[in-house]
């Protein structure tokens, strides 16, 4: 009986050690550290294996894009306010449709701009990492739903 229990204990210990070893081998410490800090740039650097030159180039690209992003954001907010004003003021359907079209256009322009930007970012990465990066971000950009609050996947939450 005591050998049965001893062998069982040894087996459980070996299984525990194996499980922990496989967990550690499957983990990505750099990625987890970036997630803990909530630092997307650290994520890009570690997950897509950027060297210093690539990282600096992408950071520069992001900084350059920030201005355009702000401008797009301002236009969308303005168009949204106009649309709401028309809606609450009882404007005619044609004006409302025109406001809707304007908002849709602006969002499409945005989507095109951000897709172009991420493709430029991907081009700086190695081909394989670039493909993986685009496979992660492009669907989220395409599936963004402006009518609902963005969920964790930046997809439809309604």
């Amino acid at each position, binding site marked *: 009986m005591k050998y049965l229990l001893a062998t069982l204990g040894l087996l459980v210990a070996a299984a525990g050690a194996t499980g922990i070893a496989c967990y550690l081998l*499957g983990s990505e410490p750099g990625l987890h550290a970036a997630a803990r800090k909530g630092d997307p740039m650290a994520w890009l650097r570690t997950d897509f294996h950027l060297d210093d030159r690539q990282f600096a180039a992408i950071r520069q690209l992001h900084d350059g894009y920030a201005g355009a992003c702000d401008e797009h954001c301002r236009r969308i907010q303005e168009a949204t306010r106009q649309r709401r004003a028309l809606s609450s003021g009882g404007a005619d359907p044609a004006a409302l449709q025109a406001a809707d079209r304007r908002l849709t256009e602006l969002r499409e322009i945005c989507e095109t701009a951000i897709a172009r930007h991420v493709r430029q970012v991907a081009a700086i990465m190695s081909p394989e990492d670039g493909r993986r990066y685009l496979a992660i*971000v492009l669907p989220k950009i395409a599936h963004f739903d402006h009518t609902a609050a963005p969920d964790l996947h930046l997809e439809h939450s309604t």
Partner: protein
Amino acid sequence: MDSPPDSLSQALQPWKVSPPVQGAFRADVWKRIGDRTRETWGVYVRAHAAAWLVAATVVIGAAAYTGHATAQARVRADREALAVTYLVDLDPRVQAELRP
């Protein structure tokens, strides 16, 4: 017909053996028997090798799979969260909704 007196028998008649008394003789015998039959851990494992081999393969395999799957799930979740944080900063459509 009487047989002649046996001189050897007569000589042995007064001879008596007095072996030394061993108080723990019986206990010692059982101890030696026990020592011979007692199982070691190695003997036990060898005797049940097939069953333990199967059990070890299943349990350690399951532990390895669970460890790896848990790590991969965490990697996916962290990557997903970071991608969202990244795009929230980057996407004017999200910013337009988040900013006052």
